[in-house]
């Protein structure tokens, strides 16, 4: 058996077509294949043959190293019947074997060029209209197909989130271009159905249905029986999904017209009932997982040949001729013409330019539009705010009734909800309870359960709902109850939300502000899972913005900046709220009220780059910190002054990504000695590493640079926390070491 099975399968198609006899009777041109259906069989076959030809072209170009993606759709071509029956206004989140689906969908959009577009993706050309040469992904703005890599079913939570948000967006006057009966489709393979994200997406759709909430989504499991080399147990998909409450299961298998009818039934169910359905589509996989996959390593030649004999193109050709929908000569002509034009178009596509510079590659990743952000902050229409706050505006309150961090965030959320009608606030306990720490207290009562609501207890799904809502033009502000819980769902930010502008060349965006309660110092409460101090995983996500306020007034202003950045730059913003400071009132001594602030009224705002400067006149030492570390640093600065006569300037970074390096460098150069107080782990790839590395590389610092950081440990329960976290004694000691050091100082 030869290794390259492409010519074998291609020849088998030719031989099958050549051997077919003319039908006894022919259907009239344009007539459906079966009475009462809308199936245009030759159109479906054209789309399927085109998809196959594109797979062949990808492998041909690979031989001369001109293509970079050979994961194909061969064997999955019956998904064309789904593409043909859904509308362009049904958002589609597709997996990577969706070639025929896309060809069929493009048929509904005159002027589209699906074959050439696909080839541009395969050769990673900068002219690829989907990703601009950044990845071969199925996507199209005009056809409502947001692109993603879909390799680990991580697109299902956002697909469900989109379905969940469709009605809500429409009622709120957003995404008006989608009709009231639009539905969402999400496809994936049988092996991918086992991914936690797939199960989360399906579970959330069922959960919504159980609550009586509309969630019109069609899950399409394209079952080829194999995950790379591992066979899926026979019957596993129907065993797992065939009899779940709140999920209609429809099997689509057999002849083309039968697949068509089953698909029509599943789509009809979702459109009519606004409830989820699971379409189990029978497929096969030809030519291995990808071009590099040596199938002979795990399948016998006979097994491979047996799969090839079930090629859907052969099956469908026989059926078309048997029912008189086409003659063998017509099918042969379709195959010849399609192969001919695709191979020539492939040669043309391979000549098209590719991305060459760093600037070109990263352009859509993190758009920087400070002028637009500033304008957005200035021009947001004012609202009558007195009603929001029961007649007394929060900025009019003064000590002793000035606000805590939690109080300021609560007021700022109310202001944002009032002036941005597209804003949604949701998460576990956010609604009726008003948040575990009362940060969202009273907001559901004031703004309604359509905008402020509780979700099921799953972070992946919360971020999925956020992405879906954002795809539709809403501005989601999901809450993750504890930073430690975010890691369970981190790929929803990393692999999906933050990558969307990159993989769609800026055509799709999912702006959001993810509120995360986190960091340590809860006075002995909770242990690791409520005191997680890892931000490295967040800062490692390309293009993401991380805000970490420490004081109430800063938090209110930073929240406004975060919202404006999300809206104007399409960014994913993490708003990391230090739990231990939510209700803190004091700074230096019990009862001093030094951590309470007045509430800055809108439109006062802060944007990345703007640091907080405490004791600006001090110049013996620069302490750089953020969040809890800022409060500790201010306490240490007081002691340094009182006990040692050392004047320390303290900088609050406020923004952990991107770091405010310009301000940082200027202050460091001015003061000369730098101490970074980082409450996160010493080995966490954290802030201290980044700050010091930047200063070493970019600033002219002549004095010593040092840091204090949390120990490389999980945070323990009870009083043992102080053994691993940074404290004021440690800061004072390090500060004194710095000011007494002569390292690097000029004589």
């Amino acid at each position, binding site marked *: 058996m030869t290794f390259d099975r492409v010519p074998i399968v291609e020849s088998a198609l030719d031989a099958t077509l050549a051997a077919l006899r003319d039908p006894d009777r022919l259907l009239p041109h*344009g007539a459906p294949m079966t009475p009462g259906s809308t199936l245009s069989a030759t159109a479906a076959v054209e789309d399927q043959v085109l998809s196959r030809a594109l797979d062949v072209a990808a492998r041909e170009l690979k031989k001369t190293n001109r293509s970079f993606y050979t994961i194909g759709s061969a064997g999955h071509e019956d998904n064309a019947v789904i593409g043909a029956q859904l509308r362009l206004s049904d958002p589609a989140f597709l997996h990577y074997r969706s070639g025929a689906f896309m060809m069929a969908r493009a048929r509904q959009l005159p002027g589209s060029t699906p074959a050439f577009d696909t080839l541009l993706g395969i050769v990673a050309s900068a002219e690829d209209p989907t990703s601009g040469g950044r990845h071969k992904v199925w996507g199209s703005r005009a056809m409502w197909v947001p692109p993603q890599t879909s390799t680990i079913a991580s697109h299902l939570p956002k697909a469900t989130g989109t379905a969940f948000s469709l009605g809500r967006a429409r009622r709120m006057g957003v995404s008006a271009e989608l009709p009231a009966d639009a539905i969402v489709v999400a496809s994936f393979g049988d092996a991918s159905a086992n991914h936690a994200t797939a199960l989360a997406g399906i579970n959330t759709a069922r959960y919504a249905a159980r609550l009586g909430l509309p969630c019109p989504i069609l899950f399409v499991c394209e079952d080829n029986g194999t995950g790379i080399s591992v066979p899926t147990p026979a019957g596993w998909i129907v065993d797992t999904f065939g009899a779940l409450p709140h999920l209609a299961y429809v099997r689509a298998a057999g002849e083309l017209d039968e697949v068509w009818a089953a698909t029509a039934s599943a789509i009809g169910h979702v459109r009519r009932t606004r409830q989820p359905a699971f379409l189990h589509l029978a497929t096969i996989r030809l030519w291995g997982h990808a071009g590099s996959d040596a199938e002979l390593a795990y399948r016998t030649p006979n097994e491979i040949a047996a799969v090839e004999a079930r090629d859907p193109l052969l099956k469908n050709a026989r059926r078309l001729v048997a029912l008189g929908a*086409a003659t063998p000569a017509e099918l042969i002509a379709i195959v010849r013409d399609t192969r001919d034009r695709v191979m020539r178009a492939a040669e043309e596509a391979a000549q098209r330019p590719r991305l060459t510079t760093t600037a070109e590659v990263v352009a859509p990743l993190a758009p920087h539009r400070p002028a637009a952000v500033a304008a957005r902050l200035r021009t947001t229409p004012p609202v009558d705010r007195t009603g929001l706050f029961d007649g007394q505006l929060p900025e009019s309150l003064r000590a002793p009734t000035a606000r805590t961090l939690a109080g300021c965030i609560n007021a700022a959320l109310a202001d944002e909800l009032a002036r941005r009608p597209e804003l949604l606030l949701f998460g576990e306990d956010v609604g009726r309870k008003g948040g575990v720490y009362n940060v969202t207290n009273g907001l559901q009562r004031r703004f309604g359960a359509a905008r402020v609501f509780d979700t099921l207890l799953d972070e992946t799904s919360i971020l999925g709902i956020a992405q879906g809502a954002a795809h539709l033009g809403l501005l989601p502000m999901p809450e993750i109850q504890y930073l430690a819980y975010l890691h369970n769902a981190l790929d929803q930010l990393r692999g999906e939300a933050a990558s969307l502008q990159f993989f769609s060349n800026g055509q799709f965006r999912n702006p959001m502000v993810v509120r995360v309660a986190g960091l340590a110092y809860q006075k002995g409460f909770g242990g690791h899972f409520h005191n997680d101090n890892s931000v490295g995983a967040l800062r490692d996500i390309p293009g993401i913005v991380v805000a970490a306020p420490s004081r109430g007034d800063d938090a209110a202003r930073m929240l406004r900046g975060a919202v404006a950045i999300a809206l104007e730059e399409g960014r994913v913003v993490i708003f990391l709220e230090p739990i231990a400071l939510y209700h803190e009132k004091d700074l230096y001594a019990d009862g001093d009220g030094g951590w309470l602030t007045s509430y800055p009224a809108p439109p006062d705002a802060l944007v990345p780059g703007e640091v907080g400067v405490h004791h600006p006149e001090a110049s013996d030492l620069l302490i750089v910190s953020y969040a809890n570390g800022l409060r500790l640093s201010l306490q240490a600065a007081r002691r340094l002054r009182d006990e040692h006569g050392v004047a320390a300037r303290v900088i609050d970074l406020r923004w952990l990504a991107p770091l405010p390096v310009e301000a940082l460098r200027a202050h460091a150069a001015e003061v000369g000695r730098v101490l970074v107080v980082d409450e996160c782990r010493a080995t966490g790839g954290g802030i201290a590493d980044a700050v010091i590395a930047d200063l070493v590389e970019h600033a002219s610092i002549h004095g010593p640079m040092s840091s204090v950081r949390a120990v490389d440990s999980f945070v323990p329960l009870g009083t043992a926390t102080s053994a691993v976290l940074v404290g004021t004694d440690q800061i004072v000691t390090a500060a004194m070491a710095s000011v007494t050091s002569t390292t690097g100082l000029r004589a």
Partner: protein
Amino acid sequence: MTGAERGLLVLPGRGAYVATSLGTLDPAHPWVVEADARRRAAGLATLSELDGAATFEPRRHFQPIHAAPLTWIAALLDAERAATDHHVACVVGNGLGWLTALAASAALDFGDGFAAVQELARLQQAPLPSGGHGGQVIYPLVDGEWHPDPALRTIADAAITGDAGAASDRAGVVHLSADLIGYTTFGGDDAGVERLLRQLPPLRAGGRRYPLRVALQGPDHTPLAGHVAAALRDNLASIAWARPQVTIIDGRGRRWTPWSTDPAALRDYTLGEWLSTPYRFDTAMRVALREEAPDRLILTGPGTALAAVCGQALVAEGYQGIRSRQDFERRQRTDPLVLSMGS
């Protein structure tokens, strides 16, 4: 890959039959004989007479009732010749060229195709329901190297709403009629056309002055031609529509293949949207180049004016590395990509 070159057949629109086109018809060709007989029966000058005239009389030859069938049959005869010399993989037409494409691909047989063009031309002779005949105005969109000029595009877009000049002027009705890659074409009623000529900044390109009013051309491919489409649906109810025998691409960029075309849908488009919505020749060419991957563009007569537009389509697409007028002209000198059959 088959060995034969893939040819893209390009069929020109109604203004293509010009003075140099005189004498191109073979009066003995069966199609010309049949057309002449039908026109004689309808009391019209025959195409042979018009084509055999000693001089080109614009006021006569540009009349829709003459220009449309002359252009149509001359292009169709070239298409027949092209099919014998080349592997025609796909056909596009500009404006009226769509009707030629239907006949060249056998979606309409000669008799029905001729009936369609003749009836269309007859209806176009009549004034608009709102009075006057209206017209078309052409304005360029590219610079000397055929690269898009954003300033011209802005002016063209503003012209639709009446904001192209120094002061707003919303006289009459103006619509986009066709996008010809390097040029845009507006259709309007008489007042609208006058307004465009008044409002569009004058400029000179390729030796011609713009804005340019197209002689004796009505506001085709705009809502102002909706009544013509409606009348055609009634008057052409009996003609027979078939699947094309070669892929044809319409004015929205939709591909109609020999295998999956629903003839009823083809009829509905032709007797509806084709006449009353903008003809996106730019989109049609883009789809043809990208999805059909032609090795050669074969431009039929009459005339050769569309050759530059074909060149602009290649530049717009960067096809085969052609990214400027200079590239195109260089290529034409060495190994012509566009073969012009007309005169």
